[in-house]
């Protein structure tokens, strides 16, 4: 079982106090995955999430007629798995380890139970998760803005109606 101290190393959880981290740690279990292991299959039931302690996981999407597309990688310190929070509780992306991974695994039923028993803990946990999710959303938007692209290409696309611009909102 992980300790509160282990979890305090995760930047995403730094807003939780040591009691809350202890409560969360007791709900988690340590797991290890070999390289090239499929942790998540797109479309299947989302009933768990993981805090990655070491290694790297790629998130991929199936696109017919193409190999799976890697949309993002997750590394030590990152949280894998959001879809357990909201219906229809299905994974939207697949997850494949690209190297051996050590992680702390939580099952969603236990987490949901803890949040229902102690709404204050629930609110703090969800806020911490929300902050991590917001950071990921902003990073994804920045990537969508394609900031490193040659600005000459933007000038061409700016003349076409309905095309994106360089700045994020």
């Amino acid at each position, binding site marked *: 079982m992980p300790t509160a101290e282990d979890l305090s190393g995760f*930047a995403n959880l730094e807003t939780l106090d040591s009691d809350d981290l202890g409560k969360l740690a007791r709900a988690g279990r340590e797991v290890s995955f070999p390289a090239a292991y499929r942790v998540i299959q797109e479309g299947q039931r989302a009933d768990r999430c993981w805090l990655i302690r070491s290694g*790297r996981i790629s998130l991929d999407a199936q696109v017919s007629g193409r*190999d799976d597309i890697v949309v993002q990688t997750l590394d030590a310190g990152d949280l894998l798995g959001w879809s357990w929070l909201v219906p229809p509780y299905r994974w939207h992306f697949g997850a494949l380890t690209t190297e051996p991974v050590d992680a702390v695994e939580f099952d969603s039923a236990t987490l949901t139970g803890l949040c229902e028993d102690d709404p204050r803990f629930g609110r703090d946990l969800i806020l911490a998760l929300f902050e991590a999710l917001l950071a990921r959303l902003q*990073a994804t938007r920045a990537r969508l*803005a394609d900031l490193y692209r040659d600005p000459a290409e933007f000038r061409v696309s700016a003349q076409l109606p309905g095309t994106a611009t*360089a700045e994020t909102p």
Partner: protein
Amino acid sequence: MSADVQAQAAAASDTMLPYRVVRRTAPTHDTVTLTLEPVRRAAGRFRAGQFMMLYSFGVGEIAISISGDPTGRGDVLEHTIRKVGAVSGALSSTGVGGLVGVRGPFGTGWDVESAAGGDLVVVGGGVGLAPLRPLVLAALADRGSYRRVVVITGARTPADLLFAGDQESWVRDGSVELHRTVDHPSPQWPGRVGFVTEPLAQLHLDPARTTGFLCGPEPMMRFCAQALLRKNVPGDRIRVSLERTMECGVARCGHCQLGPLLLCRDGPIVTYTVAEPLLGVREL
């Protein structure tokens, strides 16, 4: 520096000197690194983060940061140029033996020495890594003076990552904690896929002893600065490089004005405390 000495230095930098291209490499499909040697007289020694005005004969003159080693031979210049328009295109296609006019060095530097005893967090996106390379090389030449040297680099694709060979050697001897990330991976890419703010957000920093050095597209620098501020790194210890079109390079023409600053003189490197209120100002 007295006003006289300052005026003399400015006059010396303002003289255009002929340099010859002695080496030309193409680190990515749209960038070229030129190594230049003086034909007669060399420009003054440069500091990491400064720029030169490079003149392509008959085409025009633009500001280009120095990407070479500030601790190396003082007379040799290295510049990494992205082909985006007429002048950058003409400079990029100057072959070995070709001549380029050089004025400078100009502008403020990264002043890495002022971060001695602390941790350096260097974030470069796209061609923004070019002005940061001298900073990293200066820190590595005096490695004992710094604690952690963290370098985060971002690019569109693995093939767009600048100075790949350098980056590999920095990690090989353990001098640098390197995080490389791309927007669009190739199937063989073993590294991170994501934006530079993501590895930055995962760092455990000692905010009182960290200095951030950011260079890349302005929105990238803004997001990275915000990530550092969230980690309690003070705004006046986050340095960013601001680029505006330069013409004279010596605070005379006003082309590079941004708010109260003339960036050829007061920049291009300023603290985030100074930059933040100006970043929304497109031109003045």
